[in-house]
């Protein structure tokens, strides 16, 4: 297949620039509620989505924007949806967590883990109606502890469905570190259900592309479902305005010290352990920003720069596209 790094980079860059525009709108108060970006996981999404063709389906989690942007959903329609406009993708009913495009067989949900069963159903329909088509489930490491997702592993395996489960492992579930609440290993779990399983560095889009290509080809050939775990950074916290990143230890100190001495309660050692845990939580979310070195775009750009392949022109083209989408979205009321 003729998808080279430049094409993959293009997919990622469009998504990144789009979400940067979304961030500005959110900060300006033009987008309500939460805003979960896919910044940091573009390598995983691009490496998978680049293999999809008409008739393939996607079930998405609360970070549904990048897959839809990369799949070719109209950017102005997405923006209008985020702005809550009646001419948005879902008429302003869904917002960024509940995006649907029937034309692309793409559906998202804010309920963690629900992409598993949904993608299983998409795959069932593909197997029956359109052999050769496949479905993809995107979800996180946190979702991998949700019962319905694990049940989907089993169902897909038992029915040999054309389905790829893609776990974007950023090690976090909001403010909980996944490894602390996860027994065993997620990839081993998938394998034990009879899924073909692979692990990949999700910040290396070419590696994801290669690994996903193999699994998707198997699925198209009727060789059954698989699981791909891709490690990726969480560059913008759990969501925009993540309170852990804004945590002001000076403000928290008073109540925490009161709690530390309040009687009765746990032993001093237990209390000290709790304080330490909290400090480390805040510390860890703050240093996440330094994960920039794992930014999939930076990595790809470094490789491309050595090839002198017209990156500036690409940058300009995408900026222009997004500016136009913004103008369209803001203009017609």
């Amino acid at each position, binding site marked *: 297949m003729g998808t080279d790094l430049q094409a993959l980079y293009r997919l990622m860059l469009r998504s990144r620039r789009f979400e940067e525009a979304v961030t500005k709108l959110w900060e300006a108060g033009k987008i309500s509620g939460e805003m979960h970006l896919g910044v940091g996981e573009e390598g995983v999404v691009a490496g998978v989505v680049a293999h999809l063709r008409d008739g393939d389906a996607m079930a998405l989690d609360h970070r549904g924007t990048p897959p839809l942007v990369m799949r070719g959903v109209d950017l102005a329609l997405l923006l209008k949806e985020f702005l809550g406009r009646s001419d948005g993708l879902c008429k302003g009913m869904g917002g960024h967590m509940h995006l649907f495009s029937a034309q692309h067989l793409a559906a998202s949900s804010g309920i963690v883990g629900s992409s598993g069963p949904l993608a299983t159903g998409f795959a069932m329909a593909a197997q029956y109606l359109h052999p050769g088509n496949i479905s993809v489930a995107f979800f996180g490491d946190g979702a991998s502890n949700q019962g319905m997702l694990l049940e989907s592993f089993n169902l897909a395996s038992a029915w040999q469905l054309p389905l790829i489960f893609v776990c974007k492992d950023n090690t976090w579930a909001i403010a*909980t570190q996944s490894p602390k609440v996860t027994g065993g290993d997620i990839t081993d779990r998938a394998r034990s259900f009879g899924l073909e399983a692979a692990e990949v560095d999700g910040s290396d889009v070419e590696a994801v592309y290669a690994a996903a290509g193999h699994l998707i080809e198997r699925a198209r050939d009727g060789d059954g479902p698989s699981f791909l775990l891709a490690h990726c950074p969480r560059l913008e916290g759990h969501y925009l305005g993540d309170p852990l990143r804004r945590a002001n230890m000076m403000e928290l100190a008073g109540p925490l010290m009161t709690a530390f001495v309040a009687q009765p309660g746990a032993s001093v050692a237990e209390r000290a352990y709790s304080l330490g845990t909290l400090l480390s939580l805040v510390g860890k979310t703050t240093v996440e920003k330094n994960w920039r070195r794992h930014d999939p775009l930076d990595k790809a750009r470094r490789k491309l720069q050595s090839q002198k392949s017209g990156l500036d022109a690409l940058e300009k083209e995408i900026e222009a596209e997004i500016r136009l989408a913004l103008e369209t979205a803001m203009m017609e009321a």
Partner: protein
Amino acid sequence: MAEGKKIRTMSFAGAIEDALGQAMASDNRIVIFGEDVHGLRMNLFVRFGEKRVRPTPISESAFLGAAVGAAMAGLKPVVEIMMVDFLGVAMDALLNEAAKLEAFSGGKWKAPMVVRAACGGGYGDGGQHEQSLWGWLAHIPGLAVVAPSTPADAGSLMLTALQHDGPVVYLEHKLLSNYWLEYLGSGGRTTVSYDIPLEGANGPVPDTWEALPLGRAVTRREGSDITLVSVAVGVHRCLEAAAALEKESVSTGVIDLRSISPLDRKTICEAVSKSKRLLIVDEDYRDFGLSGEVAAILLEAGLTFKYGRVCTEGTIPYSRNLEDAALPSTGRIIEAARKLL
């Protein structure tokens, strides 16, 4: 209140935490678990330690079910389901386990547990995060469901829930709980605003918490022409509407149910038998819910009255404008009340 004594005031969320602290200090069987509780309940975590404040994986069906078992075996879990909407993935634990135990065991075994969840809309997060669902839950025999509207009730009802000998769903409305609204709504932004009922978000609280009786409504405002019945944020919208209606010389009573199940039939019947007009304001869905139930119990009591309801109709939209139109608002309440006069 003794002269010169300062009345404590607290935020709605602060009151819940304070009451929980008091209860946990006096009963070490009380344990908290749920997603992110280290961060969400950091003060209780520091005071009572990891053994009693324990974060869970995103496995609601497992940990809610575990709460039932833990309660049956001697603990008193306060199990947190972040948003009541997420109960969907774990309904077996409530519907077929917790709620059935007392009946199935012939009353010989009970599961005293509190399911704490945030509910309600008004900040533009869409229909999977903003539902109320108290009517849906109260439909199930064996479950108690409470939803406070003031800090004083928030703390007292937490004790009520903890003292009850069966499962209680404790719902915390996000427009009243400052931290939820900050996390899910503003995210630190000053560019967004919400219609927060101030008297619900902050207010006076008792020096020491005492449990209210379960299933006791309170009359927030006396009125002889029409009775408004509501719960949680709806109560504050009703009070606003009542103040506006007073300017039109309509004497409007407001009842705060506080508990959806059990339901305080007596208080509602007494008020409506006098006013002969009932308007129920319910942020939960209109059909097959609390609003119809209240009408039914009044009819069963043989009362004749004019009836109206202002509820959430259909899936709650993401768009703030559409959402405002879908949720019960002061404007909709006034309009509906006028039709009954």
